[in-house]
């Protein structure tokens, strides 16, 4: 399925010079080849385009996989544009991700205007994206398995995060902590509280979703990911149901997950994992962690 040839450029630093376009196979690179390579990258920039639906796209993908020189040329074009090649395969197409400073990168300020002024909103929008990914790929195996297709609903994501927040609240209560934040230091408020106190939905005059509510924020994330070619909308139930595309899995696995992990490590938080899922029932006899009437035998 996946193309091993593509793995290496995917992990190379964007600013290190990519492998020289050596005429290793004997033939020299012509301007026509360069145009084709750029065309392949251009296809990759249209994330909703499926290779199976476009003969030219499929042909260029085949060339990438069969002609190493052409492949390196396409990688170089992508790198020059500030793109990272995640995978080149018939299932995902030319999967490219935007480098941090690239013109293609999405900036939070453009994504949602309020986030510039309001740090709570900024967090909620980021968390919505993280939660959508976490529910789309609940187990590490799901993220690793190329054939896995995740399914999420907007209301489901909201309810899940809310439940997690409720558990943290109950745990804090059990420990007798006062989690109400100090009035003059809103930044020290626990993250779960910010989510918990935002309303889940709200009636609006024109029957649209209230943008500032948590389902509004999660719904925006899902719609945006759909435009990115990462999710496909499958229905309107439960606030909108979606399924994942191979590109989303690649993006989360190879880019977003590791990037967020690195940031978390920098904060001094080291989540230890043995590679198995943590959404598990608690070990035998361990009921201390369960909140009294949470009714949810989560173990986190």
């Amino acid at each position, binding site marked *: 399925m996946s193309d091993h040839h593509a793995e290496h450029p995917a992990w190379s630093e964007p600013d290190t010079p990519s492998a020289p376009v050596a005429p290793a196979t004997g033939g020299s690179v012509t301007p026509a080849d360069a145009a084709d390579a750029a065309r392949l990258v251009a296809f990759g920039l249209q994330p909703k385009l499926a290779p199976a639906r476009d003969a030219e796209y499929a042909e260029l993908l085949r060339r990438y996989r069969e002609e190493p020189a052409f492949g390196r040329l396409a990688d170089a074009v992508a790198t020059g544009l500030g793109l990272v090649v995640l995978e080149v395969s018939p299932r995902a197409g030319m999967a490219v*991700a935007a480098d941090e400073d690239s*013109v*293609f*990168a*999405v900036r939070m300020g453009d*994504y949602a205007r309020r986030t510039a002024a309001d740090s709570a909103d900024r*967090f909620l*929008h*980021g*968390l919505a994206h993280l939660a959508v*990914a*976490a529910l789309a790929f*609940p*187990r590490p195996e*799901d*993220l*690793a398995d190329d054939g*896995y297709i995740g399914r999420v609903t907007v209301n489901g994501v909201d*309810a*899940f*995060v809310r*439940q997690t*927040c409720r558990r*943290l609240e109950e745990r804090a209560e059990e420990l007798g902590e*006062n989690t*109400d*934040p*100090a*009035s003059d*230091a*809103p930044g*020290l408020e*626990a*993250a779960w509280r910010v989510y918990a106190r*935002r*309303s*889940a*939905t*709200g009636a609006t005059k024109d029957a649209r979703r209230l943008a500032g*509510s948590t389902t509004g924020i999660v719904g925006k994330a899902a719609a945006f990911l759909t*435009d*990115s070619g990462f999710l496909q909308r499958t229905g309107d139930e439960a*606030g909108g149901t979606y399924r994942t595309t191979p590109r989303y899995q690649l993006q989360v*696995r190879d*880019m*977003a997950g*590791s990037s*967020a992990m690195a*940031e*978390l490590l920098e*904060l001094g938080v080291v989540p230890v994992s043995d*590679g198995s*899922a*943590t*959404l598990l*029932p608690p070990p035998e006899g361990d009921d201390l962690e369960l909140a009294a*009437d949470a*009714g*949810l035998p*989560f173990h986190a």
Partner: protein
Amino acid sequence: MTFPAPAKTLPSPAPGPAADEGLARRLRALACTAPLHDLDVRKANLAGEYGIYAMAEVALAAIDLVTLNMDFDTGADHEQIVARLLPRVAAQAPARPAAEHERVARWVLENLINVGSVDRGFRAIYGTFGPDGVYVRRDYDFKLIEEVPYGGAVYLRTTDEAVNVLVGALDTDVTSAQIAAEVKLEVLISRGRLADAQLAAEQARYRTVQYAETLRRTLDATRRNVRAVDWLQAVPDMIAEALEHVADRYRHENAILTNIRRARDEAEEPENKRRAAELVDIVKDCIRRHTQLQSRLLDAGPLFRAEQDRQAFAAPAPRTGIDLYGQLVAPILPLPVEQARRVTDAFFAAGTGLRTPVSVRVADLVEILLTPPVEREHLGAEMPEPDLIATPDDSRFSEEQLAAATQLLDLPHDAPRRLSGLLAEARRSDPDLPYLVALLAVHAASPAVGTAYRQGEERLLFAVDDGTQLDDPEFGGADLIVGTALLDAAGMAADRAEAS
């Protein structure tokens, strides 16, 4: 950040952290009532003379209504709550126009939701002394009525805080409290103290709602992720317990229902009769809620097995990925938001995909700016005009003939007639009419008594065969006696009301 304590920190003003914690709890409880008082304070600012309305009373009634109307999966309907609030608002100021009553009801409900704020909630600020004697000012955020999504619409639910404001003692073990309420109810009814019994029954209903709410949350959580749930023990235990609870309550409430029905029928005072009738309604509602809960519980098992098939029996993957929940979501939620934001920002930057920047030529820009916005479709597509075809009138008898036959059969109740006479009379006016009369008479041999009873009709045509042979040139058979019976419509209506 915390305020440093005053320099001369000699004796701590607080008796100790524990006492202060109790104080904080009471301050928060106090804060929950603030929005209600606030309504009465702010009513002066409304355009118009609204001093006559007791806003806190309307607000408490609204919380009451939402709590009682919260269904198992949805919540209370906004419009319905407004409609039910109206009688109370109207009673406070009967002279005022109905439009104003509605405005007041809406204003109160919207203020309980706190529509104006982003969070749609309330915030109170209070101060406590920490264990180290440092005074900290804290924000307490809470909601009274929250809006929840269900099936594309928005419904209202009361929060735990609101329920606590409403009935302070409700924050207890649901099951035991419910049993206590049931026993109390039974005793009250057997002693004939209906006013107290009604209060107890209403309390029991609050508890029923609360129980359903707890279960709803649990089932929701289980549906989201099979692995998140201990399907070996915890969930089956929970479901079994809940089913037992439902069965138990159902038996109990049916017994109570029989009791109250008897109390209602035997009661002589109209006030007691009315109370008992209300009690019947309340207990019936409780039973309805239990049945709803039960069907939910029975659905849980198949849902689990289907999800398990889908999720658990897939082939293991060759490599491992990141555990997004365990390694990212779970660790960041307890962090201060300032730090958690750095992680979510990193995920956002790398996980949203790419956008091709838009570049516009000036020439196009002018055109784009001058294009009028597309109007949103409010009414949907136009309905096609239905193409109707007139069906030919192939009736055997005409309307006039039917009218003539009906008139002929409109007999006084004390003077039945023989069919032979009716046929002869019909034949004189129209040679076809006897067929219709005969048909109607034969029909009347088996009159639709049940239908007439249900529809509350006062007269009923009937025909009886007394053995006399019909002597007629066109028809043979029995010479029926055709007559009209009078029905006791008023008595039947009373019986129907009783039966339902």
